[in-house]
């Protein structure tokens, strides 16, 4: 437990001291989402229909963009060796780092999502389910992202490779995240979708750190 807190605190501190990196992810998110009105036209009905999807897809891409940071710097400067040699299980350390990743990228994305919803003319009924779904869904992105980031450590083409490996795996998050908003707007209720997202998170919370820890050990073996 103390190892979890120690690593979490350190990664948060590191994240905040590299504030420009964090801002970049959020700016990318906003910019990418606001390209859509230029791409499909500013017609309110059309934008309202695609708003939830646009927010989710761009959030997904922004999260992929930030995954590079998750283990790479620690791998390059030898910190990962030190972390892997601490008595705490590596999966706990992975969980701490994924949590820090979510707090420094997932949470800021959720914070600006309502503004994007407004600009994309999202139905007022859709805001609450969008935020709830992101609150449950974006941690899944950080967790699956941790697996992808660990697997691609030391690879020749890191960035695009992480996205290629992780995006197919997080498709369910996208489907149920958008589904929650659509269901609420059409009067069906977002609850079933949110429950599925919750189940996904509940499964990923213990399993993804184990898989990522396995991948990290492999990366350290060939370091």
């Amino acid at each position, binding site marked *: 437990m103390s190892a979890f807190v120690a690593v979490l605190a350190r990664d948060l501190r590191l994240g905040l001291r590299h504030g420009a990196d964090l801002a970049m992810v959020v700016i990318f998110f906003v910019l990418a989402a606001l390209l859509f009105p230029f791409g499909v036209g500013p017609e309110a009905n059309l934008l309202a229909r695609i708003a939830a999807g646009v927010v989710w897809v761009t959030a997904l891409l922004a999260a992929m963009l930030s995954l590079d940071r998750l283990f790479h710097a620690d791998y390059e400067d030898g910190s990962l060796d030190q972390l892997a040699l601490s008595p705490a299980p590596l999966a706990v350390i992975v969980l701490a780092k994924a949590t820090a990743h979510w707090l420094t990228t997932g949470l800021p994305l959720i914070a600006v999502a309502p503004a994007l919803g407004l600009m994309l003319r999202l139905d007022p009924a859709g805001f609450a389910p969008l935020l709830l779904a992101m609150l449950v869904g974006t941690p899944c992105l950080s967790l699956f992202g941790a*697996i992808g980031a660990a*697997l*691609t450590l*030391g*690879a*020749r*083409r890191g960035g695009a*490779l992480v996205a*290629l*490996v992780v*995006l*197919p*795996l997080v*498709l*369910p998050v996208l*489907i*149920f995240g958008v*589904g929650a908003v*659509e269901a609420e707007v059409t009067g069906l209720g977002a609850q079933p979708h949110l429950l*599925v997202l919750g189940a*996904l998170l509940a499964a990923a919370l213990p*399993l993804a750190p184990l*898989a990522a820890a*396995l*991948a990290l050990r*492999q*990366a350290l*073996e*060939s370091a």
Partner: protein
Amino acid sequence: MHRFANPARFLRIITAILPWSAGASAALLPLGLYFALIGSPPDYQQGDSVRIMYVHVPAAWMALAVYSVMAASGAVALVWRHPVAELVAQAAAPIGAVFTAMCLITGSLWGQPMWGTWWVWDARLTSVLVLLFLYLGYIALVNAFDDPTRGARAGAVLALVGLVNLPIIKFSVDWWNTLHQPASVARLGGPSIDPQMLLPLFTMAGGFAAFFVTVLILRVRAELLRRKLRVLRLAQAQG
């Protein structure tokens, strides 16, 4: 071949299987083609276009089966650290990707006359499309490292994660599809498969499976030789 695993026995086994699998594919594939194109009647609704099913459906089966083989080999590789298992997964992936692409292309060729469009976001086509990306991600990952053993081991983890995720992806795509079902599209399949259709279907599937085993053995043998080459070259450089 290192990590003190001796591939000799494995090599003996696959060399013994090879003539049988090659013979089975040489017999079953032409027979399947005959049943599919000549020996079976056209469907009363779909006419002769139903013949596309005899390659489309077995290709879909193979797409899934090969991924399961990959994930199983990945599990063996991780649990027993057996390098031959990594190698099997690595050799199977491109074959699986080809079957998956084959399934998508033939599906599209079937969809045009049946649905009037080349692509439908139908649940089955869509999940096969995602499967293709799982294959492509795996292949890209395995080939992204300078050290080939690192790539193979990373691939083993990814194949396993993908296998656990596959039912969830399938489930979510099905759910998504029921929400977005385009009303104009006529549904295919269902319980209307005539027993006369099963013969070409199963013959072709058997032929595909035998063919997969044959190509897999050839590829595994080539990969074993390549590893031996690398070790010999290193030995020469050191000696």
